[in-house]
């Protein structure tokens, strides 16, 4: 998949590579908050950094790698390496590896220790009243607390200038308000990554809810007297960073390779920004579009006669999470949540396409225990399933994405989102 992009051209200005960094200096590219440049295909690009096995072949491509992650024991967790710079600087830049690529949250968040280790100083980001802004966000499995700051961020060949980013565990936001509760994931170890690149269908992490009400907001203004909840206009909240790049603002594709049944030590794929805006992000004619609920981002999935209306596609989930009491669970201690079906087991889900027709999606299901114990060094596996007895949800995690190119159109009705006459949000594959 990514090989095709090597031939993609479209140079706007010259790239200059700073050692092994992916950052391009953008002198001569002109003004504007986002800039676009492309690398001539014949330019020799440096290789050899551990986290960049592929050089970016086109400016709208971010390499993704599934590997052992921070702990060395991650399974099916897709990471990107992003170059961040002190705002306005072309020299104070560093690449931060192992940033989780997450299609179920919005906004770039970087753990403060990872940023300080990179030696980058973020700029202040304040409310209209000049007070620092912080955020307490609860993920399903834990909360993050930290200040919002500004960084220049390289996404593929684009550079987003002074992008608001949450700095998780920022020590200067140490005054944790009483109504921000855990369990916290404010360290690299507890977060399991150096950060998260949230590129869900939502353009902001909170949206209207946090814009109209301080009480309902997970944003805090932090005067010297302490942090208190505050409303924040949508445009000032954490944004889906891809939606800020005019050329590719309407969506993305996640392209991950297939892996053998026994897994692979690593798998390298790509996040391709934009849909139908460039030669390398065209939606294939054979793709099927599945509309998502604009309010929830969910879609309805039929599984064994049950309608699971809170289903979603999530690169931040590392298993297929669903409930089926008829599939055997693993019996080994510590594995009781995982499915251990007979060899050759395939599960079938049905999804309603944009054209109203039902499409079936078949997914192999593997014996998690034997996969794990037979291949302890591997970090990418197909067919991993785990139970989640919350009713009404099928969480299509990384095992679904392996071997596919999955397009996701963001929410909104601007003309760029209009692909095949369907407005986002939707998923297609």
């Amino acid at each position, binding site marked *: 998949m990514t090989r095709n992009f090597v031939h993609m051209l479209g140079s706007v200005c010259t790239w200059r590579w700073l050692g092994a960094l992916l950052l391009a200096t953008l002198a001569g590219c002109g003004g504007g908050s986002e800039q676009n440049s492309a690398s001539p295909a014949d330019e020799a690009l440096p290789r050899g950094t551990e986290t960049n096995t592929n050089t970016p072949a086109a400016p709208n491509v971010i390499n993704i790698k599934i590997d052992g*992650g921070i702990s060395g024991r991650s399974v099916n967790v897709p990471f990107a390496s992003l170059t961040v710079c002190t705002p306005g600087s072309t020299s104070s830049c560093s690449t931060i590896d192992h940033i989780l690529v997450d299609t179920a949250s919005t906004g770039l968040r970087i753990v403060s220790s990872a940023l300080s280790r990179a030696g980058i100083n973020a700029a202040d980001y304040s409310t209209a009243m000049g007070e620092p802004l912080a955020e307490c966000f*609860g993920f*399903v499995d834990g909360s993050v607390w930290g200040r919002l700051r500004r960084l220049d961020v390289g996404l593929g060949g684009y550079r987003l200038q002074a992008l608001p980013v949450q700095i998780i565990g920022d020590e200067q936001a140490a005054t944790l308000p009483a109504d921000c509760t855990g369990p916290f*994931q404010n360290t690299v170890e507890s977060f399991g990554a150096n950060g998260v690149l949230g590129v*869900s269908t939502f353009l902001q992490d909170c949206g209207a809810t946090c814009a109209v009400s301080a009480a309902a907001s997970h944003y805090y203004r932090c005067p010297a007297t302490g942090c208190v909840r505050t409303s924040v206009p949508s445009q000032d909240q954490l944004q889906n960073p891809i939606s800020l790049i005019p050329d590719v603002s309407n969506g993305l594709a996640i392209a991950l390779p297939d892996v053998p049944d026994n897994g692979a030590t690593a798998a390298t794929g790509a996040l391709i920004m934009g849909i139908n805006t460039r030669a390398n992000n065209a939606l294939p004619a054979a793709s099927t579009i599945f509309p998502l609920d604009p309010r929830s981002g969910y879609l309805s999935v039929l599984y064994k006669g049950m309608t699971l209306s809170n289903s979603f596609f999530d690169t931040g*989930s590392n298993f297929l999470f669903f409930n089926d009491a008829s599939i055997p669970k693993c019996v080994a201690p510590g594995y009781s949540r995982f499915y251990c079906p007979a060899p050759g087991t395939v599960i079938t889900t049905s999804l309603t396409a944009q054209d109203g027709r039902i499409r079936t999606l078949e997914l192999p299901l593997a014996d998690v225990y034997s996969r794990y114990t037979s291949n302890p060094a591997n970090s990418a596996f197909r067919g991993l399933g785990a139970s*989640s007895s919350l009713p009404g949800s099928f*969480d299509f995690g990384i095992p679904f994405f392996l071997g596919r190119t999955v397009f996701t159109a963001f929410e909104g009705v601007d003309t760029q989102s209009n692909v095949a006459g369907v407005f986002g949000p939707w998923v297609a594959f």
Partner: protein
Amino acid sequence: MAIAAHDVRRLSPTTNGMRFAIMNRIAIHCMRWAKALLLSTVVLVMPAPALAALGESIDDLPLAVASSREERALSSRSFVRNSGSNRVRISLTSAGTMVRQFANASGTVFLVMWEGPQMPNLEKLLGTYYPSYANDLRSRRIDGIRGPVQMHVDTIVVESGGRMRNFAGHAYLPALLPADFNLEAAR
């Protein structure tokens, strides 16, 4: 169940758009619950972020006072109703997440369910069981699970899932779960 929604609305006669939206949400939720719960009368209506922890008495809930006008407009409304021999306290967090706490005949909370745009305060809802929940999440991260939470230990069961802007889950104490209680139906 429209009765309960009406009751809640009567508490706050001055409507604005946001309040109306929240009341609508209550009404929608209530209609959904009506399928599962045979309601009788609303026995208590009070403005309070009602967050009794698992294993505590539903009667011992503190009455919190909203501090700002905006918080008052959005502050949690809660009411308790009878459902068979159990009682259910329904409340709405300031972020609009619906929390339902089920207490048995002696008033002890044995189940809490939540659904809405933000995770509720699990520290308060789980109470003394919160540390084991937090510990389980830590070990889970070490084990490398990323996705919905499923925690089954001797004394507590927690299921929690969703994604940004949409979360749902429940936590209960198996030892206190009434024999005839139908978890599926409650949801």
